[in-house]
């Protein structure tokens, strides 16, 4: 079907009042769900599935998709204001977003997150619309060696996130890898590091670690002093509540970076939005003129990951709609939904249901606009949360963390783990170990080990499979380049200093 006519037909469907209503319901629900840590799109979509039987499949998918990408918008709110990641993908937003809030630029951070999400979300939909089928074919050529190279690329980011001590960052990353390995080993069915507990068989939930280390670690750290006053300075006046022109200009590249990287990584089944945000953050830092400022509150540090985790939604829909292959938890539930509604997900789904596909695509444009309009005016409202005194805010953070973690599995064991990781987070702050590499190791460890072992199984122990394939060779070289880039810069600076001294 011709793209233009398809799109026109799609808008005709998406702009029907009923579908507009469902789109709004979806994005609103998604934003709320994203703000709450622990509760995520997969559970929400599953809960709403019975309701969708009363609707037409097109309206239903419009609403459910709204929840999916709406949650990415909401996830940044608590990350920026409270250092509590609302969603696993929002962890990276905590790094610079929370620091911007501490400097009084909370409103600006929220605004940049919203704008980046809008731009990236739109790019994601564009990608879905224009290049879905050839991209899906390309994604199929990605196999375990390429995934391994991708993970290596992600881990190379450790060097960029290291800060002062590279040794401590690497140690933190190794601890993250260790935690990631806890549980049942997929290939050999041995239980590793479960300490005999049935609850450890599935490993430690990422949300538990992230909330414990970031949110609780931060709160505990702040409790050292009994100072009064508000937790974070609240900017006065509307002008200070929104990003200013310089900040927006600084984010120019980040907007593009986040959109493209997020979308491409989203297309790969199993990669995930957390990896996308890390890589886009790392790339942004690598090309920045002032990389040492990352982690202290630079706007591009918010724009890149926020954009990435939004366009990842568009990307994840590519394999789902063009091949019937779900790439993440949420897309797996959407797949089940398709089956329940009587649609047959697979390579011919778009051909068989053009109205649904184009209606969905058009509604995603509409949804992104709705979210931007929803989120921007809410920023002053959210920023008022910072006016609460610390002794009100901290109990709330404790409460939200506990409820959020408990809502994931309903198990008290997870709440214990939360307390333990809170202590770990505090100790890491005290002893000057950076938390970001730990999270990175946790996110990538599983996937990396799996990809490496799958690759070696495919090649029967031949390590060269990792470099003989073009794509993985390219990515591994990129990883190496990123690792030595800081050295180049140092060497360059040293060279310039030498020249200056001689002059």
């Amino acid at each position: 079907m011709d793209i233009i006519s398809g799109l026109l037909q799609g808008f005709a469907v998406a702009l029907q009042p009923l579908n507009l209503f469902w789109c709004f319901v979806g994005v609103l629900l998604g934003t709320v769900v994203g703000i709450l840590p622990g509760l995520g799109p997969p559970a929400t979509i599953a809960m709403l599935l019975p309701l969708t039987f009363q609707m037409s499949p097109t309206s239903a998918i419009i609403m459910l998709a709204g929840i999916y990408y709406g949650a990415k918008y909401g996830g940044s709110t608590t990350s920026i204001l409270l250092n509590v990641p609302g969603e696993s993908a929002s962890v990276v937003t905590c790094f610079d977003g929370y620091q911007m809030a501490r400097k009084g630029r909370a409103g600006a951070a929220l605004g940049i997150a919203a704008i980046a999400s809008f731009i990236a979300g739109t790019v994601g939909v564009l990608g879905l619309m224009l290049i879905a089928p050839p991209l899906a074919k390309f994604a199929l050529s990605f196999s375990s060696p390429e995934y391994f190279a991708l993970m290596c690329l992600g881990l190379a980011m450790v060097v960029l996130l290291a800060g002062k001590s590279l040794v401590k960052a690497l140690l933190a990353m190794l601890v993250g890898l260790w935690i990631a390995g806890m549980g049942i080993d997929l290939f050999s069915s041995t239980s590793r590091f479960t300490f005999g507990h049935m609850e450890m068989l599935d490993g430690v939930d990422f949300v538990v670690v992230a909330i414990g280390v970031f949110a609780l670690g931060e709160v505990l750290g702040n409790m050292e002093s009994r100072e009064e006053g508000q937790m974070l300075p609240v900017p006065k006046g509307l002008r200070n509540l929104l990003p200013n022109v310089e900040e927006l200009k600084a984010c120019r590249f980040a907007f593009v970076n986040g959109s493209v990287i997020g979308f491409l990584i989203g297309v790969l089944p199993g990669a995930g939005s957390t990896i996308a945000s890390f890589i886009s953050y790392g790339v942004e830092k690598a090309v920045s003129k002032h990389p040492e400022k990352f982690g202290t509150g630079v706007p591009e540090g918010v724009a890149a990951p926020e954009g990435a985790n939004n366009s990842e939604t568009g990307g994840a829909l590519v394999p789902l709609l063009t091949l019937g292959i779900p790439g993440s938890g949420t897309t797996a539930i959407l797949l089940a939904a398709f089956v329940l509604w009587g649609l047959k997900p697979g390579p011919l789904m778009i051909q068989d249901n053009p109205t649904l596909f184009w209606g969905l695509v058009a509604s995603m444009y509409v949804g992104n606009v709705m979210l931007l309009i929803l989120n921007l005016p809410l920023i002053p409202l959210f920023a008022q949360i910072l006016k609460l005194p610390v002794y009100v805010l901290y109990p709330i953070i404790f409460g939200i963390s506990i409820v959020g973690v408990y809502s994931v599995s309903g198990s008290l064991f997870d709440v214990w783990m939360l307390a333990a990781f809170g202590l770990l987070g505090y100790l890491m702050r005290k002893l000057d170990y950076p938390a970001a590499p730990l999270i990175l190791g946790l996110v990538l460890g599983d996937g990396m080990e799996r990809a490496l072992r799958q690759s070696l199984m495919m090649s029967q122990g031949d390590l060269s499979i990792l470099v003989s394939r073009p794509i993985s060779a390219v990515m591994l070289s990129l990883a190496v380049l990123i690792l030595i880039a800081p050295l180049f810069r140092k060497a360059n600076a040293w060279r310039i200093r030498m020249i200056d001294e001689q002059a």
Partner: protein
Amino acid sequence: MRTRIALMLMAGCAAAGASAVFAQGFQPSRPIEFVVHTGPGGGADVQARFIAAAMEKENLLPVRMQVNNKTGGGGLTAMAYLAEKKGETHVVAAFTGIWFTNPLMRAEARFTMKDLTPIVRLVLEPAMVAVKNDAPYKTLKDFIDAAKQSPGQLKQSGGSIGSRDWIVRQLLMKNTGANWAFISFPGGGERIAALLGGHVNMMVIEPQEAGEHIRAGNLRVVAQISEQRLPPFPNVPTLKEAGFDVHVPQVRGIIAPPGIPREVIAYWEGVFAKLVQTATWKKYLEDNLFADGFQRSAELNKFIDEYSETTRGILKEGGIKVVR
């Protein structure tokens, strides 16, 4: 004379009425908790929700059924949860194949199916052996022969060790003496992607998923893992017809907590026996390409013993540590 016959008839009716009253026995009085071990949207969850809806539609229960997701540990969390509800008559759970295999492999498991009360077996799930459309294997025998010629070179994508795909591989390899690699992928999507991308040669796939890819011309199915040919695949031989005497039943059924009275078991058996007779259920089997495998608790208990023994043997032969 007639009065005596009439009296006897009345006595007979009274006795019949009385036994009917006694057979009434257990009736649920509050909503039934239906435990599943997958998250929302997972196989067991979808089936449980369907059963709950079908029960309402066919008026088979005086109360509602509410699905409760207890994920974790590959079914172990759900099993432990059920075991702790000893004597509870208003709880049931849906079991699948991993309830058999996981406790055999995991030392952390505290309970097995024998610690619970199996109620009925409902369905058998068939599967298909699929290869890429441009592969040189027209039949399963072609694939096995190719594997024999280059042992360990061909690859199958599948789930974890102990899953049905793995068991199929073990049995086929033992049966034919061939040898090929098994590469685990955690998600169904990734397994299909690996096959479509040409990174593996074969996989065991569910008939629903296979259907769409066949229609699109990407995959070819060379054998069915089923007792009889499935209607949408009339030209594909079953394993037995293809010459491989290998049976790998993938079962689903209902199980209840330990320590419930005999009459409650009988009640549930009765309800589910009625369910599988309904047109709604028959359509469900057709739509999902399940085979009816209804067994009441006595038969089911025997099946559990036999199947666990068989699985134990397969695991040991495959070099997997078995802990009970």
